[in-house]
């Protein structure tokens, strides 16, 4: 009896502070301590959610934002992955490419925003380009390092057991580099949302960021806060998905076994 109640308590404890904060926030707003211009009451945010969902507006914006995020991610991650495989498995390509990539990656990709808008205008291409660029570097770096840190002894064993180059890559190098690649992917997902937020806030006529900027003009703080929460939830979901992949693909790794059990 005592044991189950203490387990329950343990699960509840982390939620105490958020719940108290939200209750306090709601109370402060209801009592008029916090102006709704500054921060809307949680219930108002909730009703904004219901209103926008019912009109279908929210879903449209959400779809557009997610579409951008994942299209940009797909392009950037693919380029980063292929470049990483290439430089990771060929000394020549490493010498040819790696230094340049390392130099370019020191430029914060968001600093390119004005230039990108000049190139592409404020259409979808600009946003895709920025997201893809931001995603590419962490994926590239971690793929390259992952491949380079694969146990040489395992590669020698693979060769000694007659694996072809392709088999060696598929059976030994890729799985050996996968933990590192997935670290890159998780990092890149963070970059993806961040870039999306910046891009949609600066120049967009649809999407969650546009919804927030639009609401700002009409002092709809409830919608602005709702947009912020949506970004947070989307970010969390992407991270959970990436963790799921880790657990699935790295089952063999004792570090991930407890989580997988």
């Amino acid at each position, binding site marked *: 009896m005592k044991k189950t109640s203490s387990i329950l308590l343990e699960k509840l404890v982390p939620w105490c502070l958020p719940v108290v904060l939200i209750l306090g926030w709601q109370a402060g707003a209801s009592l008029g301590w916090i102006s709704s211009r500054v921060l809307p009451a949680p219930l108002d945010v909730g009703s904004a959610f219901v209103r926008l969902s019912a009109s279908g507006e929210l879903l449209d914006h959400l779809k557009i934002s997610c579409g951008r995020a994942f299209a940009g991610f797909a392009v950037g991650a693919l380029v980063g992955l292929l470049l990483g495989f290439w430089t990771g498995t060929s000394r020549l390509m490493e010498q040819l490419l790696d230094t340049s990539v390392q130099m370019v990656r020191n430029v914060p990709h968001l600093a390119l925003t004005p230039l990108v808008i000049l190139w592409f205008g404020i259409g979808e291409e600009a946003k895709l380009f920025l997201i893809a660029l931001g995603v590419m570097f962490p994926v590239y770096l971690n793929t390259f390092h992952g491949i380079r840190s694969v146990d040489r002894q395992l590669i020698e064993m*693979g060769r000694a*057991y007659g694996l072809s180059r392709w088999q060696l890559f598929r059976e030994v190098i890729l799985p050996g580099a996968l933990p590192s690649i997935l670290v890159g992917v998780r990092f890149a997902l963070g970059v993806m949302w961040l870039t999306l937020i910046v891009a949609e806030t600066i120049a967009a006529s649809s999407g969650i960021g546009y919804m927030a900027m639009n609401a700002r003009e009409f002092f709809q703080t409830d919608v602005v806060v709702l947009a912020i929460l949506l970004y947070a939830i989307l970010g969390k979901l992407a991270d959970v998905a990436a963790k799921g992949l880790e657990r699935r693909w790295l089952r063999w790794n004792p570090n991930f076994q407890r989580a997988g059990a």
Partner: protein
Amino acid sequence: MQSNETEYGIVSRVDRDTHGVAIAARGLRKSYGPQAVLRGLDLDIAAGEFVAIVGRSGCGKSTLLRHVAGLEQADSGTLQVGGEARRQLHANTRVMFQEARLLPWKSVLDNVGLGLPGDWRPVAQAALAQVGLAERASDWPAILSGGQRQRVALARALVHSPRLLLLDEPLGALDALTRIEMQGLIEGLWREQGFTALLVTHDVAEAVALADRVVLIENGAITLDLRIPLPRPRARGEGDRAALAAFEGQVLQRVLARDGEASA
């Protein structure tokens, strides 16, 4: 396969049922930078023979083995395996390393079946059964003990029915009891399958217990080539043990004598 006479006229022990290959090395030289590791090494191994290589750490045992495996090229000299010059890796040769080198992301069975074509599962399963690990087929290598991992590695090597098995201190990291068990297993499978075996070990007792011949490498060449004409299986009974100990003493004395000379 029937006639195992090498080009150099050395007649091998003609076992009718051996499917092993003969090895002939002549004047093998290999340097890494300024350091000469092999200095004109000659070695003949008959088809189906079990030869153990001993020598002090860093004397070039692994280097020789890697040459025979085709993982490394000599600077000069010739190396023939099964009558062909060995210039690269060959499918008739399998290596077992000091570390098991199992792929941690593959199950035990998938590790054994690595690189096998076609319908390999029953074959791999049979090989696992031979080393007594049939029921661990679906486990991850990470949860096996060191000895079990080496047994999986042995199964992985033997599943290809190699004609030459190279073993580089495969039991070095195991405890004494597991080691004796593994020695029995290796000897049994060697007797059964008739491959040529070349074992590098730092344990002279192990060399004497397993091998038909024990060779000692010193200064990049072979300085002792001792035949162990004891019947098999070497059950380590009272009589055997005395004979084995005598041979072991002989090898050790030789190694230590050189040590004395060197320090004198």
